[in-house]
């Protein structure tokens, strides 16, 4: 609506990417949760777990309306004062949750989508590994690297 000139100079950068990334199985138990800072682990676990409420709500709402291909990206699940929680559900009902710091106002929806796609690809790679037993917690350095690239501070 308004294009307020920003001058392109930013003194403070709010480009922290995701603060928490989680992979949750069809049965709703976590396969992988990573977050920064690590001290807030418990809080993020609660946040991600609670977000499953909204994921289920959105999935059941989709099921009611159309039977055709559902969009995997669920969008903003719910905002809290500190975080914005986004969701994505693969066709196998494996859920991906990304938490963004609310103070990060420069985020665009497209960037979140591409992060989810990246995450999905990385997850698919993990599943393709013959030494990985589906359903086990993900312990993969490659996957860790992808996740930490999403969570690095730029």
């Amino acid at each position: 609506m308004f294009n307020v000139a920003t001058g392109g100079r930013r003194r403070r950068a709010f480009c922290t990417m995701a603060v928490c990334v989680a992979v949750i199985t069809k049965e709703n138990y976590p396969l992988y949760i990573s977050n920064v800072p690590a001290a807030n682990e418990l809080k993020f676990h609660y946040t991600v777990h609670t977000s499953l409420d909204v994921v289920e709500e959105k999935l059941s709402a989709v099921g009611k309306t159309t039977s055709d291909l559902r969009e995997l990206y669920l969008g903003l699940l719910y905002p809290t004062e500190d975080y914005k929680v986004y969701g994505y559900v693969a066709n196998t009902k494996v859920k991906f949750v990304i938490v963004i710091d609310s103070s990060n106002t420069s985020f665009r929806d497209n960037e979140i989508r591409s992060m989810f796609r990246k995450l999905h690809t990385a997850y698919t790679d993990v599943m393709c590994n013959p030494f990985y037993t589906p359903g086990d917690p993900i312990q993969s350095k490659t996957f860790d690297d992808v996740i930490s690239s999403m969570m690095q501070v730029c």
Partner: protein
Amino acid sequence: MSTGAEERQLVYTMENKPIVTCAGDSSLFSSLQPTLVQQLPKESVEWRRSYGRPPKMINLEANFISFKEELLPKEGSKALLTFPFLHIFWTDCYDSEMYKTSTKEEISRWQNALRGRGSSDWLIVLVEVESRRKSKPIVLPRMAIVDKIRNDFCNKQNDRVVVLNDPLRESARAQESWQAFLSRLRLLLLASFTRNLGHFEDDMRALRERRTNPNWSFAHYFMVQEELAFVFEMLKQYEDALVQYDELDALFTQYIVNHGAGADPTEWVSSFCHPVCHWTGLALWRPIDMVRRELVQNGCASLLDLRSYLFSRQCTLLLFLQRPWEVAQRALELLHNSVQELHLLEIPLPLGAVDCWVYISCLEVLQRIESFCDTNQNDMFAVYAAGLRAYAREKLHGLGNLCGLMSCKGPTSEELNRTVDLLAGLSNNDTEMVNNLNNPSKRLREALSSTEAFEKHYLELSEVAMGTYKHIGRLRSARLIGKELADFHMRKCEPRKAEGYLLDALKTYRAEGWSLLVSHTRRQLAACQSQLGNPDSPLTTSGVTYRNAHLFLRRQDSSSSPGRTREPVLEDTTRTSAVCNVLLRPGNNTVSLPTLVREPGLFTLRQLCLQIGPLQLLSLRLQPVPQYTVYSQEPQLDVISGDDLLAGVPQELQVQLLTGHRALQEGEGLHLSLPESLLLLDSVKIPAHVESDSNDDIPDIELSLELSPRLLRVRFPAISGYRSVRFSLHVLCQPPTATPPADDLDYHSIQDGIELKGLVVEHRVSIDSPWSIYSTLVTLAFHVPFRVQHTVLTAGHRKFVQVCVRNTCSLHFILSRPSLGFSMEGEDTTLESLNPATTTCVCAGKNAWFLWEINGQVPSPVPCCFTVAFQLGSTTEQKRPGTAKGGPNEQMSDDGEEEKPPRHCLFNYDFMLVQLATLYSVQAAVMPPLGQEMCQMGLLCSLEVSITRLCKDDPRQEGSGSPTSDCGEIPGGATVQCSQLLYKVVDNSSNWAVCGRSSGLVAMPLTERATHKLHLEVLPLFAGYLPLPDVHLSKYLSESETDEPCGESGRTPGVESFSTTTPRLSQFDPGEVYNVSRATQVLVLPSPDTSLVDITVP
């Protein structure tokens, strides 16, 4: 822009309408004003908008006030609310003189005043009162005044003068002129809106573009754009009004973001960075919060003031638009965003002030929406309401923490000071607000006043928030609140109240396998239970239990399976099975766990629990899942007959009995009631084969049969449950005595409980069993193996009966001893059999033929009966059961040719024989042309036909209803009885061309051997042996003849009935005309080829 008290007053009420000034004759206008105000909004008009906005239908209203020069906007004024959109001059001048002397002057002055302020929106109304005009002589035509006004003032703007006819009267003319006036007024008003608002918007945009100027004032711009919003609101265009606020919102938000991001520091943004000293939250109950508006206008508003004011306006408009849920949705976004903005601008705030602001705001929004509609009724709200309630609860929790209201010791002095600081920011001078009992700010102050009050508020709010979450199905969110409540109770040293919430939460986390949350909750629970003084309990929840070893069985359909569990958890089960005192030896031990299951279902073994002394070991869920099915089967009886049971041939019926859960006692058995025509071929003992699901070898048993007439008792020895007993019964179904006509497949008859459908005989066998009071009905369908057809053949006088037996099944049969006889005795007519004495084998799908000659005349029609004995052919010997011996009721033929006599069955076929005497014989011959020995293709040949009468009188004349006799003239003069015949020579195979007459009438005398010869010419079209052309004879009934059955009238000469039926033809019945030369062929030579063939030899 107009300022101060005047505008404030205007804005406050929002009862505004667009202003229209009225000049001229004020008394005239006053008389019309009520009608005008009432009529104007009655019809809506389409408002076409600038900037590509969609057109809208709008009902116009106006506030008509007396014209004063002060009302005209001053130069540069931006006020819109007080802007007069239209100026009307009213006059009822009817007199030209009066117009010249005063009215013209008045209008002129009025116009100058308007022009001076650049106002071009005006209208002159000339009211024309009929009565007044009539009272005085008309000096000038009425139109003259209008024309004068147009001339004098409306330079090319003729639509600016309107004549209103007799407006106070109730007449069609008055109505019409009112409507014309009103629509003109509406159009002019709209045009004025479009123009003036357009100017305003252009100015506003220009102002916005200047926002980078250092002295640009957001407050000023805010007021300008809000003025536009007010006008839209005044015009009831709430959507447009909302857009103005949304634009302001977006502009402001973007500035804050830029400011926070370190873009050019804008001075005015800094004004919002001042410390906030009031955090009274949103106030949504008044359409316009004038206190905050003034703060914004004067540039002294804090960030929270601006946000509160902006949102209250958006809320008001959204409620006008009937979108309360959007208020709730936007509220949550606003609150989150505002909190972020406070951080972003680094606005100094006392600890907890934000919490107060958010808490009050949440409750305010909820109250506002609830006053609008019931949030619990509408699920759409419930989602947002739940979010707001949870957010308010979270904030209250934080406040309780800060102010020491959650510990059982009470607040410290530092915490008390903090409370006092927070309460200071909640002080409110707004008396109206204070008087509102349910005022959220008041509730917050109350909650912060004491630990007891806080507890009451906090528990109440938490319960409602949890309830809402549960209502919309967000159980995890509800559990999280439950955990916070547990935390609260723990702080209040009430572990008993906390335990339940923690257990609930633990159950959820465990079921979904969130280990970190499980261990965290468990730790809390352990702390809780240790406070409860039960040192053992913590272990209970840790998954180790002191109980007996258990094997858990659960029906799979009894509950939805919880998620994958990552650690041993004692599962809820419906069944357990246990063994005690098991002695374990080194190595593998096999322990069997007995269990008695009383209901059918699929049972899954979930978990093993092993107890050794005080130690209990619990397994994970067993993988792969061992399971077993328990079922209970009712006894079941089936009669397995092959697809094609044949009547007249011994057939085997397989009976299968599944005993199911009911074991059979010795002597129990089945009772079969058999129809009479179904014969049992078995003897008193039959073997039966027994099977069971397990592969145990069970010896065959023997069943005893007892047969009383039409009832068969099958007795079983003792048989245990879940066995399958199979035995065979051999039956013979007698073919039906009345075979349906061969061509009637839909034939249907029921005789003695036997149903005959086409060629299928259906027998119903009912079986009574000891385990059920109901009989099992089995329908057995036996196919009749033959289809029979008969024909009567003629050779001159002689008549023959031919019977064709068609074998319709896939087996071979041997037919013997065919016989044909009349059902009636005492006739001297005999049937002479022309059949060989040997047996006839008829293969599957083939026919057998039998022939008899009829000697002597028979009355026609006469019932006949064809009988043939049949037995299975030798090739299908294996089909016959070898064990079959002569049963007690067996019907057998008695020709004992073999040691083991083959079973003969008789097949009957009853039919009506219709035999007619031959009346005429027709003989035809083709003669070669004269001089030729043979017929030749292309040469005319003669066809000689001779028709001979074979019998003296026509036995069918009487009662047959087809008189054929006539009185014909025979050359020679004598009148003889004649019958007229029509002959017709046709050649259906196009071998012959009949030349000349092909048909004609023949009068035949009714004397035996009377002959009539015909001579016709035919042309053979092909060479070779050609069948002769057909000669058809039919009876010709002339006009005078009647159709009456009294055939005598036709035969008596001179006696004629004079009915007027048209001549018609009647066909002879088959057998009445004998064609002697049927199937005769004649040799036709090819025509000599006379064409030339040129052969060129190179």
